């Protein structure tokens, strides 16, 4: 900024502030810490915080802030130039298999589970899964917008693919995911989840499961590709160290498998396009689509209503708390029922959901009590909304109905995406069930490009 500055950060972000200041080239940055959290504190509570001590340094907070703005700098604080990073040898120091397994765990290079150790022989065998050169740069990835990006080569992705338990024929899918630059472990204090949907003939060639149990731990390709994304995110994308490059307060259990599954394309009703075709790819192309969200509900609820109304009713209520994004995952037999009920395409069904799931007054006001109070006090636009009555829709724009053009750069990690409702079919048809969550489309990448 060019002027003396002090950063004020709550004590929960102790590690984050220190490591970020280093990575941004200002290791001597003056930081004052407050007790955590400051969100939702009253003026009285805030005064108490400010009259107390920095919980990290133990010094009185106000004095520390003023000292940070006027105290003489140390010599090293005035330096420019490059700060050296740790070296990156191609091989690790030799050790026994058991010691290496534990070392990968202790360094947080895994998801907490054992890996296949990436010997040169195994990585070479993995690289047979692609025609690309081992030293070609695949992309760069960061935990979220403000973090630094790391780069990685085809060999580095192959190394993590070996670790995840992938077969060489899965490598193009994993390279395609890595090429999007999307981490599966977004660093936000909210605990993000990600989803990877695979379309095209490669689904069968590598024997992925789009039938019974497709979302669960029942198939090597589904599981290993999903897990490879986690390892790529940690080891190549600089993500996933709790407290510095991962801040999700509780964490998200969906990050274990990253919801990686193939769409049940062949069981879609006629006229319903697979996800990649909806996004502008050709049907015979192999494509991975990345989606981002937080929550996953699997609905086993019988109702005499037609499925479109059950889903619509659920969505209306889900939206009263969500981000306004939604992805509906339907069993193929539900898709067929929806088709039979008059929805000729996925897009028609999505449009129906978008139109009909807008919040009626009674639902809007019951989940937005503060706005209700303002409306009663005559504050606009809430007062006008209230005049519309209990059953009319509150005209809050939930969707930006435009879609990013094909090939447009993906939204940065952690940005709330604004996309239409996605509809994806998967499952074995053992029952007319469906799932829904607040996932939205982030980007798609060609798998064929990485063959």
């Amino acid at each position, binding site marked *: 900024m060019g002027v003396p500055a002090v950063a004020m950060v709550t004590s929960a972000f102790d590690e984050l502030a220190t490591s970020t200041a280093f990575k941004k080239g200002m290791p001597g940055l003056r930081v004052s810490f407050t007790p955590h959290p400051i969100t939702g504190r009253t003026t009285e509570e805030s005064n108490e915080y400010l009259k107390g001590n920095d919980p990290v340094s133990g010094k009185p907070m106000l004095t520390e802030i003023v000292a940070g703005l006027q105290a003489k700098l140390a010599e090293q604080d005035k330096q420019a130039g490059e700060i050296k990073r740790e070296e990156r040898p191609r091989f690790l120091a030799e050790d026994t298999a058991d010691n290496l397994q534990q070392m990968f765990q202790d360094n947080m290079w895994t998801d907490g589970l054992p890996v296949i150790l990436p010997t*040169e022989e195994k990585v070479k065998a993995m690289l047979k899964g692609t025609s690309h050169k081992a030293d070609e740069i695949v992309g760069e990835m960061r935990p979220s917008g403000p973090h630094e990006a790391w780069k990685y080569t085809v060999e580095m992705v192959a*190394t993590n693919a070996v670790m995840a338990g992938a077969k060489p024929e899965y490598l193009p899918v994993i390279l395609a995911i890595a090429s999007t630059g999307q981490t599966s472990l977004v660093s936000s204090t909210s605990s993000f989840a990600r989803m990877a949907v695979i379309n095209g003939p490669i689904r069968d060639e590598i024997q992925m499961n789009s039938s019974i149990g497709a979302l669960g731990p029942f198939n090597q390709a589904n599981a290993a590709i999903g897990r490879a994304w986690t390892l790529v995110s940690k080891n190549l994308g600089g993500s996933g160290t709790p407290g510095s490059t991962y801040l999700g307060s509780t964490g998200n259990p969906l990050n274990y498998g990253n919801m990686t599954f193939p769409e049940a394309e062949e069981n879609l009703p006629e006229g319903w396009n697979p996800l990649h075709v909806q996004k502008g790819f050709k049907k015979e192309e192999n494509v991975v689509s990345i989606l981002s969200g937080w929550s996953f509900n699997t609905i086993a609820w019988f109702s005499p209503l037609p499925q479109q109304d059950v889903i619509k009713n659920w969505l209306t209520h889900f939206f009263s708390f969500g981000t306004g994004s939604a992805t509906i995952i339907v069993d193929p037999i539900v898709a067929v029922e929806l088709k039979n009920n008059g929805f000729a395409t996925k897009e028609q069904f999505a449009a129906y959901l978008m139109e009909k799931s807008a919040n009626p007054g009674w639902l809007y006001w019951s989940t937005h009590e503060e706005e209700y109070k303002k409306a009663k006090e005559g504050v606009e636009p809430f007062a006008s909304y209230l005049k519309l009555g209990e059953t009319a829709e509150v005209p809050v724009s939930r969707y930006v109905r435009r879609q990013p053009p094909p090939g447009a750069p993906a939204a940065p990690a952690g940005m709330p995406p604004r996309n239409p409702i996605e509809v994806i079919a998967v499952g074995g048809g053992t029952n007319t069930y469906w799932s829904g969550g607040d996932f939205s489309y982030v980007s798609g990448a060609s798998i064929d490009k990485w063959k």
Partner: protein
Amino acid sequence: MKFVIRWLVGAFVIASVVWAGMVAAADGKIKVLNPRGIMPAIKQIPMAERPDTLDGKTIYIVDTKFANTKPFVNALRDNLAAAYPKTNWVGVDKVGGYMQDDPNLWAEIKAKGHGAIVLLGH
């Protein structure tokens, strides 16, 4: 006899080679690839020189607008103003959400201010 000795020497050579191999197997160490990516270089940024005193100076308090933190930000300004009344403490909001840059604000602070407190997180 010459043949026998040659044979025995041959066996001995084999024994040595095999022995060496066996030591490696017993030691059981293996070599694996580094799973980590390429970190960028870090350009160190020199910090701005500090003034001797804040008396008569203007210090901006920049609210990056995390949700529900306004009472704290205002309390910070009021407490500093009460404790250091000779300094001009100016509260400002950065535009947009916490992920958005605000070059106009940084320019204003540089032109009119002598320092800044930036609130990050919640």
